[in-house]
């Protein structure tokens, strides 16, 4: 039974990649392209969150802080010193990773809900500081100037969304490959080990504190990439829209809905939820009073109660291993 199960997965994987590449030529309408770009952006965020939440049980609400640091770093470097957003993206990633590690070090020893609440407090602190820090535009936010013509180096395109589409797709793909590489390497095994039984892992030579920080650093780095993309895509960032609990929580929902602690779970979650919310908002939003989000929440509760492991488990098929012990 085992071999064709892996065949089926590879087939699905290629079908998805093909669909993603061809999609903008089939759906030429900007609104549909916008939805897919959001799917990719949230996809990268969900994967990044899952490295911490799914693989290391460090459930965090801080994802939008890393996203925000990415957005703000590249924007300020571009506005104040004219540095290309690409370099800004890299710098934002490293800064976000560094900050993630520095701040998480004391709190990463904490378990479960303590760590979650600490990240909530951390999110609130960063948002309040940004709102009152004039250098970064304070509450007024930062507006990126509209360039006259598109330019890759300045990361801004006027006519169509295609460049944005493929850049975000590339970022998502690289995020996926990096994560897959890490998960299947020594680090991945150590993370899964320290998730289940930290003491046992320590007794086998795993420096649990260091590997938690590696997971946090990587997660922060990938989230910052999405942040820079968002800044260049919307050309206006202010604290509430970039560093908000709403964004953090949306990422958590997507990842858990799809199935956390797996590689493709978060992606599946994004592929279902992001189009759904956008369509419901476009369809009912105009007339409805937030019905869209009520439907969204209802589905989440249903999924949690029916399928606590997340949707992806539905497609995993029978348990990989046979039951050795009767």
């Amino acid at each position, binding site marked *: 039974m085992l071999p064709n199960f892996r065949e089926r997965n590879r087939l699905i994987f290629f079908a998805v990649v093909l669909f993603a590449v061809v999609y903008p030529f089939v759906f030429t309408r900007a609104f549909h392209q916008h939805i897919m770009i959001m799917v990719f952006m949230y996809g990268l965020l969900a994967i990044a969150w899952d490295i911490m939440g799914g693989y290391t049980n460090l459930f965090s609400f801080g994802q939008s802080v890393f996203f925000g640091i990415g957005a703000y770093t590249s924007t300020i470097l571009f506005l104040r010193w004219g540095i290309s957003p690409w370099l800004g993206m890299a710098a934002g990633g490293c800064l976000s990773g560094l900050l993630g590690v520095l701040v998480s070090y004391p709190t990463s020893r904490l378990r479960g809900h303590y760590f979650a609440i600490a990240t909530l407090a951390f999110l609130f602190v960063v948002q309040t500081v940004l709102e009152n820090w004039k250098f970064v535009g304070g509450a007024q936010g930062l507006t990126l100037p509209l360039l006259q013509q598109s330019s890759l180096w300045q990361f801004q395109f006027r006519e169509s969304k295609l460049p944005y589409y493929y850049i975000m797709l590339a970022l998502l793909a690289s995020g996926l490959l990096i994560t897959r590489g890490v998960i299947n390497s020594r680090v991945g095994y150590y993370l899964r080990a320290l998730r289940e039984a930290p003491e046992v892992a320590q*007794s086998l030579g795993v420096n649990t504190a260091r590997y938690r920080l590696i997971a946090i650093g990587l997660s922060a780095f990938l989230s910052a990439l999405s942040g820079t993309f968002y800044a260049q895509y919307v050309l206006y960032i202010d604290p509430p829209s970039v560093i908000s609990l709403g964004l953090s929580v949306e990422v958590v929902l997507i990842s858990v809905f799809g199935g956390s602690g797996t590689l493709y779970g978060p992606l599946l979650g994004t592929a279902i939820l992001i189009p759904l919310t956008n369509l419901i908002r476009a369809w009912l939003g105009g007339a409805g009073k937030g019905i869209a989000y009520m439907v969204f929440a209802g589905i989440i509760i249903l999924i949690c109660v029916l399928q606590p492991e997340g949707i992806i488990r539905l497609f995993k098929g029978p348990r990989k291993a046979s*039951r050795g012990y009767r």
Partner: protein
Amino acid sequence: MKFLQVNQVTKRFGGLVANDKISFEMSGGEILGIVGPNGAGKTTLFNCISGFYRVNSGGIHFEGRDITNAPPYAVCARGVARTFQIVQNFEKMTLVENIMVGAFLKWRRKGKAEEEALEVLRFIDLLDKRNVVARHLSPPEKRRLGLGMALSTQPKLLMLDETMAGLTPVEIDEVLDLVRKIRATGVGVIVIEHVMRAVMTISERIIVLDSGKKIAEGSPDEIAHNEGVIRAYLGRSYAGG
């Protein structure tokens, strides 16, 4: 220099003194048994050596290097591996993955680590269940897996915490053979055990602990006839006769 030197190790939990100035030494490749009634401080001593507890006073040296209060992963990296009294494996991972976590200490690449892991599984006779998820193992198999995980870090000293508890006589003999096989590869072993028959047959030397103090040390025969030991185990009245 000595293989393992433990001198004047003291560990207090608030008022309770779990280990009171315990000292002993080990030369390489030896099987040392540690026995004593419940609450004598055996597992505490284990946790002090393996870095899970911080020692209040005294020192621990392994192969001449000071490992007092070193973090557990550093102690393991030095070559001191341990199993746990309450067996804990990585439930959601397969057997080979469980062993690989330890193997990664010596071999960075995934391929080499997997190879070594399969080797260890053959050694502990669980190779056929390599892709089984640890949760589905029987208790004795889980304990053997625990042993395998400790072995996979290629230790020079292996500390076994009640590996024989709750096993049938046949299973106990299997474990004893395993320990002898390990000993044959030059690895030093410390065994904490309640099953007197097992510890008596396997150990070359035995230390007896009672309420935190070392009350006796010697060969299994000396210990069996030692006044203090009997009193500690069987209570005041018996010792009189």
